[in-house]
């Protein structure tokens, strides 16, 4: 009973809704309860999603500079090499990775590398088109399993994958989208991930009763998937 009681507190803790003495006690408990730590992590993610409910507000322009000035003025915290975390994903940084991405993507940020104004304009037009489709009320939003985000399909079957926090593909690999229908997988485009979020227009329309899956394949892509999917969508209606 006591144990159940403590577990229940993980939700209130994630919402920062414990009274301060209770919060202290729960934090002590957390230090040696893996299960509660997992609950808290999951609940904090859900609670943080609630932050998006109200929509953003533009902070005063000076705030950014003030935060950065304050951060710079503080003595940088020295991180010993032995303590440095190993990240689960490769290619977290580096010029080579940036260049590889730029070559791969017709994306917004790659165009900042290219000097051609007409490329830039074309990419921006494409971005605006995408945005207007995503905002259309009659576009269907289909949930993903294995990644945070959705598949957005408009009336004519054009489809976009909108994925949050997709790790950048290793430089010798690429994400490949597949349209799954009647037991077949048809390639629907390559992309590279990375950044805060990725929005990819699929190269093929998504028909009714199909689903979309994404695998990580060797650079250049393949004709049929060779890997298990990184994520999949539910079937379209």
């Amino acid at each position, binding site marked *: 009973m006591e144990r159940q009681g403590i577990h229940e507190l993980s939700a209130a803790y994630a919402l*920062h809704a414990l009274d301060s003495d209770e919060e202290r006690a729960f934090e002590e408990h957390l230090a040696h309860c893996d299960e509660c730590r997992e609950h808290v992590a999951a609940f904090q993610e859900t609670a*943080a999603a609630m932050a998006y409910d109200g*929509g*953003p507000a533009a902070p005063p322009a000076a*705030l950014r500079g003030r*935060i950065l000035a304050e951060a710079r003025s503080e003595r940088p*915290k020295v*991180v010993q090499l032995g303590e440095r975390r190993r990240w689960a994903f490769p290619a977290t940084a580096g010029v080579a990775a940036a260049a590889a991405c730029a070559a791969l993507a017709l994306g917004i940020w790659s165009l900042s590398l290219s000097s051609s104004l007409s490329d830039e304009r074309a990419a921006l037009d494409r971005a605006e088109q995408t945005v207007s489709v995503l905002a259309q009320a009659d576009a269907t939003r289909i949930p993903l399993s294995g990644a945070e985000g959705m598949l957005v399909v408009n009336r004519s079957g054009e489809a976009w994958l909108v994925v949050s926090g997709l790790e950048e593909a290793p430089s010798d690999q690429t994400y490949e989208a597949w349209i799954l229908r009647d037991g077949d997988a048809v390639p629907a485009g390559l992309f590279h991930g990375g950044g805060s*979020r990725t929005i990819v227009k699929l190269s093929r329309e998504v028909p009714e009763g199909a689903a979309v899956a994404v695998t990580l394949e060797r650079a250049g892509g393949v004709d049929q998937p060779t890997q298990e999917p990184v994520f999949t969508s539910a079937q379209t209606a």
Partner: protein
Amino acid sequence: MTAVLAFRGRRKARRSMVRGLAHLSDEALVALVARADAEALAELYDRFGGVAYGLALRIVRDPSLAEDAVQEGFLTVWRSASRFVAERAKASTWILTLVHRRAVDLVRREQPRRAEPLAATPQPTVEDTEEQAWLHLQRDRVQEALQRLPDKQREALELAYYGGFTQSELADRLGEPLGTIKSRMFSGLARLRELLTEGGLERDPWNARESTS
């Protein structure tokens, strides 16, 4: 080749392309912040500052207190980035959690300010349309999920998260036993999590493919 729109705004893209930060994941940026990289902190602020400020404003209802909450939240990111464990949480969760806690602490200190939590109102903001489209989708998703919760669960979650009320304050306010509020908060947040994460995969299309090919 598929058109890939890595959704950074045009202006922001420029700024961060100076050092090529735009393609980095949020978690990779936190790793740079842990090495005292202020530009990485700036990029995180560009990604989440608007949402963080919108949240803080809703909780504290005062622009200068909201700024304080955002500033303290991001400075906590700066100071404690080396303790962030990417395997355990998303960077966005961590940042928004820090800002939320600061905002709630501030509103508790300013007790008299507290009344009903502000209803979510659309905030004209970011000039950048891609950002807006993304936030619009996120917002719809969360609002749909919240609407599907039983009323009492939604009420408890909203008063706690946006109103900054503790469980025992909620019990007093709603005239219900503390135990009831505790279970309601737990089941409400668990249900919200299901609603936000459910894939809706009744039949697994991937395995259907493998079994027929």
